[in-house]
């Protein structure tokens, strides 16, 4: 089956500096995938190459088997995108924004966009600047969904929203996934949010790394020091805990943080779903 998204040794260089390099991974169709990484790890660069805003320096990224090329209608039409802070024209009202979407996208589904606004109670006549941040995010999401592209890319969609608006936004995303079998890629710093909704995460640790991990099943190492030490270790079922240590199952957030702090210790083969059969993650503390 053609993956929804596939990066093959993808790299982007600005001048002499690599923003992203050797990123190789696959996202299966219908998956909801989180993209995490520290600032500057190349998340936005990766997303912009995916959606056709940016051309790769090396390697390629394909969306449902077709190579993404910057500034080309076929690439742009295959992906819906909600940029960070969900930018919209502030002086437009909601129906102006939808008319903009209709004029800019041949596949536009006006009924879908208007239905979403009716459900959410957002008046079509209201100016964007008079909407709350959560409502603006919902308008941006409605525009992305009305484009009817099979892949939805969200760049930090909830970073600027309050907890309730976050919940509502993610609920709408997941409802759309359930309705249409959409594939979703979400870049976010809010790791706990990703744990709730994502089937997979892609951890970008720096310009050279690019790896996808199943949410459960990857084991890496991490050490905190002083009186209390925590190590995330790769272990096997049945192996006894080391003397003087207390073992507990490792949490998703701990796992992701371990990756981000010690990318070198994460001996994960890029692009492979299951890093090592039989391995079990454990956080061990003394």
């Amino acid at each position, binding site marked *: 089956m053609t993956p929804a998204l596939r990066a093959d040794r993808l790299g982007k260089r600005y001048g002499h500096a690599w923003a992203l390099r050797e990123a190789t991974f696959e996202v299966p169709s219908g998956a909801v995938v989180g993209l995490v990484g520290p600032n500057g790890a190349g998340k936005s660069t990766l997303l912009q190459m995916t959606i056709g*805003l940016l051309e790769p320096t090396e390697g390629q990224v394909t969306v449902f088997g077709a190579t993404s090329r910057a500034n080309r209608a076929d690439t742009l039409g295959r992906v819906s995108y909600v940029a960070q*802070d969900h930018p919209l024209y502030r002086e437009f009202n909601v129906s102006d924004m939808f008319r*903009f979407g209709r004029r800019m996208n041949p596949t536009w589904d006006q009924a879908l966009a208007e239905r979403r606004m009716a459900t959410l109670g957002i008046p079509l006549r209201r100016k964007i600047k008079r909407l709350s941040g959560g409502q603006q995010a919902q308008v941006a999401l409605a*525009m992305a969904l009305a484009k009817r592209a099979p892949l939805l890319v969200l760049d930090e969609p909830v970073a600027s929203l309050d907890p309730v608006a976050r919940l509502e936004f993610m609920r709408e995303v997941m409802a759309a996934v359930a309705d249409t079998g959409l594939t979703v890629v979400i870049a976010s710093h809010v790791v706990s949010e990703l744990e709730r909704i994502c089937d997979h995460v892609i951890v970008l640790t720096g310009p050279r790394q690019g790896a996808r991990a199943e949410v459960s099943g990857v084991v890496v190492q991490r050490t905190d020091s002083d009186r209390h030490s925590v190590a995330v270790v790769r272990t096997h079922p049945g192996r006894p805990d080391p003397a003087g240590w207390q073992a507990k199952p490792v949490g998703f957030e701990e796992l992701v943080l371990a990756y981000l702090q010690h990318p070198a210790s994460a001996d994960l083969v890029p692009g492979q779903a299951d890093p090592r059969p039989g391995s079990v993650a454990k956080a061990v503390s003394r």
Partner: protein
Amino acid sequence: MTWVTWRQHRSEAIGALAFVGALALLLLKVSGPMHAQFSQDGLAGCVAAGARSGGCLSEIQSFMNKFGFTFNQLLIALILIPGLIGIIVGAPVLASEFEHGTWRMAWSQTVPRTRWLVTKLVLLTGGLVALGAAMTVVFTWYRGPMDQLAGSLTWAAFDFEGVVLTAYLLCAFAFAVLAGLVIRRSVTAMVAAFIPWLVIRGVVDLELRPHFRQPLTLRLPRSANIRFGPNMVPPMTGHLGDNVLGVTTTASHHLVSYQPADWFWRLQFIEAGLYLALAVAALGAAVWLLHRRAT
């Protein structure tokens, strides 16, 4: 895209319409007495006769004394207007998308950004041509009687009539679009576009225009009075509308260097062509740079 462009620029369009209306009203009020005096004195007949009779000359003299300053010098106050309109419309086209982050939304729609920009530029250029033409009509009508006497080659007429005013406008617009892409801040881009526009305007007006074509030379006897300037009607050449650039005096003669009245359109097209070439170059660079941003 037509609707998108209209929706984003309709307040500018309404503002431009209001501006032209206000300008027309103002100029109507200012020029009313001149138009009235011109027909009352029967100066059209003098112009038709080439302003040779003594009666005509004194009529013209008093007319010029009365209106010359207002209509030949005061127009300098308006010389910056095409540039200001151009930068106000041009700078935000790309800069405001960067300022508000909306470029990420606008350029990730199915219509590629270069087509988005080209369509916008074509439509905005069309609107500015219409605006420039309307302003030209207003100015030309306003100066009508004065043009018949003093000609249209002095800068107070030349810079506001024919096709150059629209070309100035488009040139400033193009500079500002490009500056908006490079600088990404509307107000800074306006300033950055206005300065080169103003410098070019100055250089062309003062240095280049007299040399677009080699001026003609008229040899006059030493006894002739040296007098030139926009308010000297008829000029030293004796032919209404000629533009005297300078006089060199030799031992036996005055050599009058001048542009004849019927060069008006030729000089207009040369100058407009210069500004339009600059405008096309700047807009082309903007489209190319926007395309190249992706790599």
